[in-house]
């Protein structure tokens, strides 16, 4: 019998990874992780590691039981090798000597990582108005502005901390917007979620700053299962930002996050995302698999607004949705989804109208380049009781080159006669005449494409908070570099 020497693939991969992806590097922070695979013991380990109360462990175990009986969905217009769920590490925490009170105490190595990402924390602090809760791999490292927020009764902390300190709130709301058995990935997340953010805005309070979180996947082969819960009490307002970049990896990384938003009567939640995970290389190798479940519930007169700019990931499966339960509630979805090279995205939204006079708006802008495939999938459902409800949907696609594909799958279900649904869709190409026109005015082709694309996305970019919009514009330019001419 011959025994093959076992070469660590990770080492090889590290050697071959190039610098093509701007954010493709890993930090040298020692990680504490468990063996690959998923079973009840692993879940108990995670729960124990986080010192969770019994009800949380029970929630996880129940979710695991449900998940085991479910099958990975395959209805989306994407093709990818199904991950081996027993080949994933489900817990990984950066080792730290002590709990940090402020960002200044941050591990210098980590600090450098953030600096390289262009996330200058100091800058952000100085510019104020942005409180940052950084999630690196699975554990929240530090939380800022907490005290300032605490004065207003606003809670903004890692969800693991919320489970300890505010169990009544977490217990009351977790899994209520996205039930454990909602789908395969939400069940998985419910069983193994590592950490994430928790945000609570008390009655009548307007959160005075944009709340912001940066997510990163830092450990090779580590699954990332974020869990976010935002609760806006009656008459409150909050704007929440989320931005992501990931280091380069030559093996696929799974991300299955769950985000739940609760907007109680007359509350408003604005949730903005700029997503730039590693999309794989030019030949379609590697990249993050992004299977996210995001949903919000609107009670009477409440409003939830999702804005997203998606440029990263090899495969995206994502439908930020609104359940418009209350009367006069409002749901909005503004999205820019870019696919290039071999990226695939099946993304859109669901607007479920249950309350009378509920309104929803969907503006989805797809940009496809290279050999990529982008699909918009959206459901507008108006229930019988949702009298006089209205929806407006606009789905546009912009194609670059002739090797990419763009698809639209609108589902419309209307169960009453007093409601009104509008759907508009366009497909266009960046014209050579547009580029020549810009060239003639002294604007080079790359810059011209950026101008045209930014113009096309303007309606969505305008919905982002200022500093995010600037970042998003840059991201669009980087993502589409070299795709024309």
């Amino acid at each position, binding site marked *: 019998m011959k025994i093959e020497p076992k070469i660590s693939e990770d080492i090889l991969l590290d050697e071959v990874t190039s610098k093509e992806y701007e954010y493709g590097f890993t930090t040298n922070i020692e990680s504490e992780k468990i063996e690959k695979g998923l079973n009840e013991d692993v879940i108990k380990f995670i729960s124990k590691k986080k010192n969770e109360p019994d009800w949380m462990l029970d929630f996880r175990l129940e979710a695991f039981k449900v998940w085991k009986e479910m099958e990975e969905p395959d209805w989306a217009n994407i093709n990818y090798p199904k991950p081996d769920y027993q080949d994933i590490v489900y817990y990984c925490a950066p080792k730290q000597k002590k709990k940090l009170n402020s960002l200044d105490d941050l591990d210098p190595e980590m600090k450098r990582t953030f600096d390289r990402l262009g996330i200058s924390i100091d800058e952000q602090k100085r510019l104020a108005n942005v409180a940052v809760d950084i999630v690196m791999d699975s554990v929240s490292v530090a939380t800022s502005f907490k005290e300032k927020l605490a004065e207003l009764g606003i809670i903004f902390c890692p969800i693991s901390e919320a489970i300890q300190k505010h169990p009544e709130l977490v217990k009351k709301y977790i899994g209520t917007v996205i039930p454990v058995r909602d789908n395969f990935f939400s069940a998985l997340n419910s069983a193994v979620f590592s950490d994430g953010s928790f945000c609570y805005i008390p009655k009548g309070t307007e959160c005075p700053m944009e709340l912001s979180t940066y997510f990163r996947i830092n450990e090779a082969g580590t699954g990332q299962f974020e869990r976010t819960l935002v609760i806006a009490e009656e008459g409150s307002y909050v704007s929440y930002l989320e931005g992501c970049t990931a280091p380069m990896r030559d093996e696929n990384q799974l991300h299955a996050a769950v985000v739940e938003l609760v907007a109680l009567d007359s509350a408003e939640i604005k949730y903005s995302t700029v997503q730039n995970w590693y999309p794989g290389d030019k030949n379609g190798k590697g990249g993050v698999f992004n299977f996210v479940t995001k949903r919000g519930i609107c009670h009477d007169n409440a409003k939830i607004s999702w804005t997203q700019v998606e440029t990263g990931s090899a495969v995206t499966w994502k439908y930020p949705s609104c359940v418009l339960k209350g009367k006069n509630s409002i749901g909005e979805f503004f999205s820019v989804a870019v696919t290039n090279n071999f990226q695939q995205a099946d993304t859109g939204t669901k607007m479920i109208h249950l309350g009378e006079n509920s309104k929803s708006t969907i503006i989805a802008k797809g940009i496809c380049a290279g050999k990529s495939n982008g699909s918009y999938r959206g459901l507008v459902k108006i229930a019988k009781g949702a009298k006089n409800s209205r929806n407006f949907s606009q789905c546009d696609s912009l194609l670059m080159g002739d090797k990419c594909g763009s698809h639209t799958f609108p589902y419309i279900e209307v169960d009453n006669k007093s409601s009104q649904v509008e759907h508009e869709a366009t497909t266009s190409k960046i014209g050579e005449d547009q580029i020549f026109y810009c*060239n003639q005015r*002294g604007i080079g082709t790359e810059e011209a494409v950026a101008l045209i694309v930014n113009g096309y996305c303007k309606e969505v970019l305008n919905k982002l908070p200022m500093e995010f919009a600037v970042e998003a514009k840059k991201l669009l330019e980087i993502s589409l570099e070299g795709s024309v001419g």
Partner: protein
Amino acid sequence: MLEIKNLKAQIEDKTILNGVNLKVNKGEVHAIMGPNGSGKSTLSSVIAGNEDYEVSSGSITYEGDDLLEMAPEERSHRGLFLSFQYPVEIPGLSVSNFIKTAINEKRKAFGQENINAKELLQLFKEKCELLNIDKEYLSRSLNEGFSGGEKKRNEIFQMAMMEPKLSILDETDSGLDIDALKIVANGVNSLKSSSNSIILITHYQRLLNYIVPDFVHILKDGKIVMSGDKSLAQKLEKEGYSFLN
């Protein structure tokens, strides 16, 4: 400033320009007239560097340099401006942002800093007044939903903002009513100086009543078949192109 020698150009396999010769000096205004399909717009496209057209022979010299060697944006940086016959629409891109980018790209090419906001605003204000344009129009999407006349006026507005050395106005008069024509012509005249030149491409003599050319050339079957002063345009107006036969 510009010298075209024996220029031949084709699109796909069809020869459109068949040996054009033209010399434009500083401070001169040239009008190029000619029947439909004579190659007027092709000539302007080739000068601007549109890659749809292939130059098979001949040369174009601009300020002593080989123009055909330059990329379209470089030609622009060097002061060449084309007022398009059919300006394109770019939804979501504001007129002001477009012009600001154009100005800054040119400055960048010469190693200069971006134009400062105050200077830019002053320039916008001045040129809006010159062309009788409401400032609100600066925030509109480039050419989107513009009437034919508005598009043409927008071209001349850009010309005014960019201060080119050589401007080619490709049928800028078509689609303009008489009032708009006067405003545009007035704008062009005020931009005229002893150091810049203009090539007017037009079907009609009408424009030449307002922008008086130093030379008039008649382009037919891809060649300049006749040149003269402004009286040639008047003759053409009276007799039509048939007198060429």
